[in-house]
């Protein structure tokens, strides 16, 4: 049986003036997988991700996300995806509860569902005594876990995570990955970028962007084997070194 595609991308390109940020990339992401989207700073990851989230319109190429067309149905796409990034996730001057209510509301949850999810989420994260604290006062690791839980509160088909564990301590990073595994169990596909190469190992498949192209796409073990190396760190290093474009 053909595996169900949650993302299907063909020749996707984005140009800014005469600069080609994303150069005709083609790949599929299958339902239930953890898809690692790697690349050096400036390789085009963020641009590609913004297009897939319907936030930036492509220059050319085709793509469907959660079954919807990237040109004509961006608003539908937005209801079927979750997104969190290290840079922007929650409102610091709203409380934990208010953030959950706000995002749940935006994602279209009804009052009853919202109440239920809010309670469940606060309990599962152990944030009972912080529920009425401003998010700004929480440690980064807690914020990130909360941001992730909020990003999947509406049970999206796919969640996009842009460097979700940047700057987070080793224990919290691992707790964060537990949340990812749980989401996968609940049929949510995960699309994640990271600079931690141990985390690359936790992905089912990895694509590696170099200069706007996908230079490699395979499982971590196949990539290591193909490069004749023992770690993803070395694979990354080998591929990123071939970049011609200065990371400007």
């Amino acid at each position, binding site marked *: 049986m053909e595996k169900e595609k949650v993302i299907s991308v063909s020749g996707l390109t984005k140009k800014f003036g005469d600069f080609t940020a994303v150069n005709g990339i083609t790949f599929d992401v299958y339902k239930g997988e953890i898809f690692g989207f790697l*690349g*050096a*700073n*400036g390789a085009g990851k963020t641009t590609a991700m913004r297009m897939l989230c319907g936030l930036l319109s492509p220059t050319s190429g085709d793509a469907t996300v959660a079954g919807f067309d990237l040109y004509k149905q961006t608003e539908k796409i937005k209801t079927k995806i979750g997104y969190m990034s*290290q840079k922007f996730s929650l409102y610091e001057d709203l409380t934990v509860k208010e953030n959950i209510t706000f995002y749940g509301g935006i994602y279209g949850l009804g009052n009853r569902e919202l109440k239920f999810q809010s309670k469940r989420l606060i309990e599962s994260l152990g944030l009972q005594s912080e529920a009425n604290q401003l998010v700004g006062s929480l*440690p*980064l*690791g807690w914020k990130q876990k909360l941001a992730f839980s909020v990003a999947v509160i509406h049970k999206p088909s796919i969640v996009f995570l842009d*460097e979700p564990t*940047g*700057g*987070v*301590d*080793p*224990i*919290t990073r*691992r707790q964060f*990955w537990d949340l990812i*595994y749980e989401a*996968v169990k609940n049929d949510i596909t995960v699309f994640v970028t990271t*600079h*931690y*190469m*141990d985390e*690359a*190992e*936790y992905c089912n498949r990895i694509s590696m962007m170099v200069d706007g192209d996908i230079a490699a796409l395979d499982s*971590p*073990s196949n990539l290591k084997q193909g490069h004749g190396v023992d*770690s*993803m*760190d070395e694979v*990354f*290093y080998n591929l*990123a*070194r071939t970049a011609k474009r*200065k*990371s*400007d």
Partner: protein
Amino acid sequence: MHSVVVENLRKQYKENVAVDDASFKVNEGETFGLIGPDGSGKTSIFRMLATLLVPDGGEAHVCGWDVVKNYKEIRKSVGYMPGTFSLYQDLTVEENLHFFATIFNTTITENYSLIKDIYVQLEPFKNRRSGNLSGGMKQKLALCCALIHRPEVLFLDEPTTGVDTVSRKEFWEMLKKLKKEGITILVSTPYMDEATLCERIGLIQKGRLLSIDPPQVIIEKYPKALYAIKSHNMIELLSALRELPLIGSVHSFGEHHHITIVDRTLTLLDIRATLEKELPYPFQIDKIEPSVEDCFIQLMEK
């Protein structure tokens, strides 16, 4: 001689104690790593040492100067690269560098030899506004600006967070060169592989230093035997191992899970035999040397 001396340093924001009785010394010319989770007080320590924040208790000296009384002297002799990009976004690369050189009563040419290796990589973009640079380039520019007055001590607060592996390696190569120039470096990082590149590491949690040792000593002090295990389905293996009373701790480390065993008398053969009874699928287990990350996790969970 110590370049940095921190004694019972304390900082409190309302009821929140950020730095709690922290003490450590950094030798002249040493590369010292301050490693700890977010919110452990690293940034507050940096800001107090850079004389941007007044301590609530204790003392700190940089290059022999008191951080409160002699703050002006300290500002002349240290370079500080904050965790967030703090240069002028609407000035160009060259303008930023020129600005910082002028503030410190020097010129770009006077100390060019110190920043040359870094600056040549920035030079193609010297007329670009710094706000439009990529993460890796911003970080290189920030380092140049922190070095332009040839400081004796360099404070680097998470300089490589959000930076890719290749740029991180380059950055540490630069630090090695600065060390050769005799510059003392106090650096914080969430990347444990970078911690290994420091001569000594202070592990910090909740505003207190848990330990201060060279990386090798930290590893030797690891109190347990450590094993690496893997199978075809690592997520399943992770939850299975968590349920087993035999297992003391289990953490993912890339393609393996690292585990410790409650009963220290068990040999690898015993453990393998027990696990073979418990796990219905093939697996591979070996005894391994801990990494700094293993040690850090162990200390944090104590």
